[in-house]
């Protein structure tokens, strides 16, 4: 995972606006797809939040599993790592870990700035 992310640093969670942007450079031919990707993942996070409140761990596991599979292919290995962590936490029904990971992914997406090369 990139050392820039710092998403596991607990005292940063909740202070997103004060954190600098994370700039990721992606191949130009993926521009159209990549521009849709973060928005879709934000929708997934809304679903995770609802599922977490409802104790629906299977939905969270599935979303985490998909994120793990897709993130790196789009140029965001951090998202694959977050996806794996979400999946693992959902399997053992660890609500605290899920909450922390959810906040970490949200923080990552809010700081993300993509350029194309």
């Amino acid at each position: 995972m990139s050392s820039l992310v710092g998403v596991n640093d607990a005292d940063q969670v909740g202070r997103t606006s004060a954190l600098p942007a994370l700039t990721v450079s992606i191949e130009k031919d993926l521009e159209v797809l990549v521009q849709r990707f973060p928005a879709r993942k934000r929708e997934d996070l809304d679903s995770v939040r609802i599922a977490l409140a409802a104790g629906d761990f299977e939905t969270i596991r599935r979303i985490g599993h998909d994120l793990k599979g897709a993130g790196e292919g789009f140029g965001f290995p951090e998202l694959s790592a977050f996806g794996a962590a979400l999946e693992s936490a959902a399997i053992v029904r660890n609500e605290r870990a899920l909450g922390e990971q959810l906040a970490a992914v949200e923080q990552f997406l809010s700081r993300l700035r993509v350029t194309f090369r």
Partner: protein
Amino acid sequence: MAVVEDDLSQAELLSHWLELAGHRCHHYDRGEGLMRALDQESFDVLVLDWNLPDISGVDVLKRIRASQQASLPILFVTARNREDDVVMALRQGADDYMVKPVRRLELIARLEAIARRGKHHNEQPEVLELDVYRVDCQTRTVTREQRPVELTAKDFDLSVLFLRNVGRLLSRGHIRESVWGPNAVVTSRTLDTHVSRIRNKLGLTPENGWRLAAVYRYGYRLEQLDAAVPRTPRNSES
């Protein structure tokens, strides 16, 4: 190629990569959607996810291996990375297995490798000799018992397609796409007319040891009949 993947972002990415590599992609987000399509379509290669919303990728794999599309090359692309998952998929008949996240060039290389092993690759031999037929793709000529057969350009392409896929059931969609291209509008009647014409011109009939058979609502299959079977299907008592 067909991609079965329920995550839309992942499906778009895989399809994008495959299309950049020159392959035409058909996407299905459910296993049952693919199985329905396989009733009417055939593909060169299938990219299959394991975790699907309706049936598992392994169940899709088993059903395909038990169907008339049993020889379809299949590459599993899944985030499941346990050794027993990989082993199970390969033992159930997957041709290869990749763990997500996949790398673009490796994905393409693996797909092309299993397509080659399935003998459906593009780099076919320039000259194909089969029974009494000799096809020269460079001069675009076909001879039968050393005599040239007059064929139109499309009839030649259609002949090559069948002669390179003896015994394989080809869907109408696959035939249309291979011979006329992905965007051509070709009616079933036109296709049937061309098939009928090459059947006659090449003598692909049981008397000659061949059968170019129509499969109802699906497509066609060229079969070479067993040499032991009498080639003249006359009833001697009639």
